[in-house]
């Protein structure tokens, strides 16, 4: 009987939260979190309760107005329908992905928490509730994965602390005098990471109590990419968000890794909301992969199959969502590198499954672009070159090969899409400087676009003839794309022009000249 109490507490708190305002509602929200923590304590171990510190702190920080917001009949209906559907989906998922032999209502509580967050995010009554929804989604992601893949108290508390990040993203900016030093420090750290990865030092993992981070070559490279992107391309004052990306790629514990990714999505969509909902759906699908891995039994082939499909589908959706803003600058490379790392455990038959979905995703990207243009020719057209590069990126990530060319192509294309093809430039440029910038953003060698796209074709052909031909067609389209796009680039996420903009062409040329060094980093 005691096993059902967390679920009962959650339901009571949920009803209270929907029916009250001000402090009572805040208390009800804390109640839902307490129910999830209780559930975790029973499902995993009491140490996991440390997870709740962050979410409860976030719930306390997010004050609610004392008076209830007036709502219309339609609004109320929509909110009720949303939470009902979300809870049903959560129950379905909890029943399909059971944690051990535990009762359904016990293991469903973290899922319910996610459902509540999703409902508040999808049908918010006001902006604070939307933010609260994001907090709950981040917390729920950590809780669900903690239940499937247990971790120690330090890791659990850190995973829970990720729930504070949406609030930090909304309210906290680096003070002006600190912005340049922080950017320069991040660039310095990126350089150190590149050197370490290039040298191939044999530090496999850094451990602090039960919290550990991986520092393999690929992870160092990914960290360097994220640090450069954070220093040079994030909105002013938000440079610190790149550290979340670094945590995503380097954290060993799945709960912390995926919670950090959810937090990064929440922070990334503070300023640019385009693609936000798709990004959360993508996260939901991607987040199923570690849960499936955690609950899989050795004989369960369908779980492993679903895991590969979740990875592929999540990747396609995140790519579709990453058109502009910080989602593109930070979320795309983080998710891309995470999927690349996760692919190492996918078996060959499931890899083929994954390749099929990414190939269809590549076709979908191009078809969607054409379709949107055919539906409304007056609207702002998508940048053709970007869409083709996204499609090539999908093929490259899925093309896992013995030589590591797929990973190399994916890394190059991620650098290109996240760093190079963003409109950030110093104020005046002419002569040699102008030519350098033009070269860095072109399809000519030695720009990173050329290296990445060419490698993607080779890697795709290693995977299969069909993928190779599709990649070759995309590359042919890429050569023609400048005719349609001109010099169009994705808009810069609210950043004034500064000398840091020169980092972009430098990175492009460096990666295009020495892709072999990147391959070396990826192999360690």
């Amino acid at each position, binding site marked *: 009987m005691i096993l059902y109490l967390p679920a009962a507490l959650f339901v009571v708190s949920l009803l209270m939260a929907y029916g009250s305002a001000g402090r009572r509602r805040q208390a009800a929200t804390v109640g839902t979190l307490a129910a999830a923590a209780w559930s975790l304590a029973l499902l995993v171990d009491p140490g996991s309760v440390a997870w709740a510190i962050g979410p409860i702190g976030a719930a306390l920080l997010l004050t609610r107005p004392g008076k209830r917001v007036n709502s219309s009949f339609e609004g109320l209906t929509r909110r009720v329908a949303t939470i009902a559907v979300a809870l049903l989906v959560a129950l379905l998922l909890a029943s399909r992905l059971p944690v051990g032999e535990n009762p359904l209502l016990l293991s469903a509580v973290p899922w319910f928490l996610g459902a509540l967050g999703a409902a508040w995010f999808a049908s918010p009554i006001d902006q604070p509730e939307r933010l609260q929804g994001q907090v709950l989604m981040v917390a729920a992601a950590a809780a669900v994965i903690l239940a499937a893949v247990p971790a120690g108290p330090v890791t659990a508390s850190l995973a829970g602390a990720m729930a504070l990040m949406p609030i930090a993203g909304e309210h906290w900016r680096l003070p002006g005098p600190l912005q340049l030093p922080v950017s320069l420090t991040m660039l310095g750290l990126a350089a150190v990471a590149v050197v370490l990865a290039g040298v191939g030092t044999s530090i496999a993992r850094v451990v602090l109590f039960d919290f550990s981070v991986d520092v393999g070559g690929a992870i160092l490279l990914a960290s360097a990419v994220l640090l450069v992107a954070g220093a040079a391309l994030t909105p002013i004052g938000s440079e610190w968000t790149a550290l979340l990306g670094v945590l995503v790629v380097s954290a060993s514990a799945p709960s912390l890794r995926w919670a950090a990714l959810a937090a990064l999505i929440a922070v990334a969509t503070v300023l640019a909301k385009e693609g936000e909902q798709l990004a959360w759906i993508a996260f939901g699908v991607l987040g199923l992969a570690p849960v499936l891995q955690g609950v899989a039994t050795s004989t369960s082939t369908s779980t492993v199959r679903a895991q590969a499909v979740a990875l592929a589908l999540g990747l396609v959706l995140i790519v579709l969502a990453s058109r502009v803003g910080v989602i593109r600058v930070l979320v795309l490379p983080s998710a891309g590198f995470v999927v690349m790392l996760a692919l190492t455990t996918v078996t060959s038959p499931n890899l083929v499954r994954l390749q099929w979905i990414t190939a269809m995703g590549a076709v979908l990207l191009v078809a969607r672009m054409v379709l949107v243009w055919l539906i409304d020719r007056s609207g702002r057209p998508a940048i053709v070159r970007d869409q083709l590069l996204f499609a090539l990126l999908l093929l490259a990530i899925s093309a896992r090969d013995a030589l590591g060319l797929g990973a190399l192509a994916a890394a190059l294309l991620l650098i290109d899409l996240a760093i190079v093809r963003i409109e950030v430039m110093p104020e005046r440029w002419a002569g040699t400087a102008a030519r350098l910038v033009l070269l860095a953003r072109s399809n000519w060698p030695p720009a990173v676009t050329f290296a990445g796209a060419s490698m993607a074709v080779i890697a795709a052909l290693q995977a299969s003839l069909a993928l190779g031909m599709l990649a070759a067609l995309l590359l042919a389209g890429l050569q*023609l794309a400048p005719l349609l796009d001109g010099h169009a680039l994705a808009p810069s996420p609210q950043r004034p022009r500064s000398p840091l903009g020169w980092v972009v062409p430098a990175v492009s040329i460096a990666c295009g000249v020495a892709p072999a060094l990147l391959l*070396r980093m990826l192999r360690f």
Partner: protein
Amino acid sequence: MPLAAQALLPFLALLGAAVIVQRRPRRASNGWISVAATGLAGITAMVELVRLAPGEHVDVPYLTTFPYADLAIRLDGLSLAFASVTLITAALLMLARLRLHGDRRDPWLGWLLTAAATCAVIFAHNLLLVYIALQLLTLAWTGALDETARRRRGLRLSVQVADIGLLLAAASAIQSVGTSGFSGVPSDTFALPAFVFVLLPVVARVAALAVTAGGPQATVAFEPAIVWVAPAGYLLMRMLALMGGRLPDRPTAVVLFAAATLVALAMAALALLERSAARRVALLLVAHAALALALSTGADPLMTVACTWLWLLLVPLAGLASVRVAAGSLPEAFTQVNLAMIPGSTAFVGLWLGSLALNARGLLFGVIPVGVGVALSATAALSRLKRPRSLRLDPPTVWAAGLLLIAAFPIVVMGRLVVPAAATVRLVPGGTVAANPIGIVAGGRFFPALVVSLVMALALGFAAWRLRLKAPTLPFPKEGVKINTPTLPALPRVPPWGRFVLWGAFAVAVYNVLTRP
């Protein structure tokens, strides 16, 4: 000097000159610097070729981090022969440009970079490097760093797209044997699709030759010889070398031979109808290239020597044809004779060797379309032959005369240039072709090149001077024959729910992949 440094000498000469020219633009001496540097690069390549032992090849690696795409230079008979011919042709083009007045543009930097890029294509050690060098070559000759630039955009994009074929061939090799290097790839690595992929950039360049020549008239056009013919010929011969000197199967060879011969016939026929001299020259060059391509399909040593001869000597001929000379001048007459492919021209030697090879294989009927092509080319070229009004000793005259001398004395290039290149493509047993000062012996037959050249010179001279020979010309179709190009119908507007159909289809496909056992 270490080999690694020797191999870089042509590049150092070209790029060093490019740096000098770039730092002091519009100086009168820039042209001479360019000529000297390019000539030096060509001579260096030739010296390396002479020093190379028969059948020897040297790979000079500089960066070996990519096992499938080392940054390395390949020195063998084929690469050094093509490099020598191409660079010397480039130097001659620069010299011709220097001596011709009327064009105030300063092309030296672009030409030096283009020559260096072509050199990179030829010296590249693996297919992936060749692909990269081809892109650099396209960048160099167009100068279109800005990809939206309108200048020759269609041509540039066509070539870039066609070059993807080479990338696919490289990928195919990497997939099969883990490398795209020219050493260590078994000859059965490349099947028919890979060969077809490599044919794409070759065909695109030959087609570009037809499209560009006869366009805007510069005093000297650098592209036909250096950007189109040399890379096209080299790529094809290199691919043949990688495939052991033969095509994947006999039907492929037959189809390719037939297609190339038909193209040659068509081009020669079009040249017959063409009024513009520049366009006619371009069409005849394409016919020449098509015949070279046709003879590249053979699988025996003599045929390989024949096609190597044709490709190698097409480079300087294309260069010569790209120099604007006065109407009725001696070099114009010499160029027309060479383009005519008649006995006494360089092409005829190659065609004679090819005919012998076809005959030896019992395929004498294959000679008939080649002969018809030659007859059409000769008619087209000689119909406009005019008696030279003046005799001036300028670079084009010397160049054209040099080509005719090579046809008269094949020994000059056969043993040191053509046979080493052909021997790289496939094994050429000693005695397959033997050259002496008055002719060549091949397949047990003797071709008295010197005598033939003298007789032809006398015959043509007599015809031009005394009989005022004018070959029959066909009237060009009159204006007014317009081809009505159908206008594309306007694209339909798609209803907004179309996107749901797209997403639905994607969802169904993902579901199928998920549930597929």
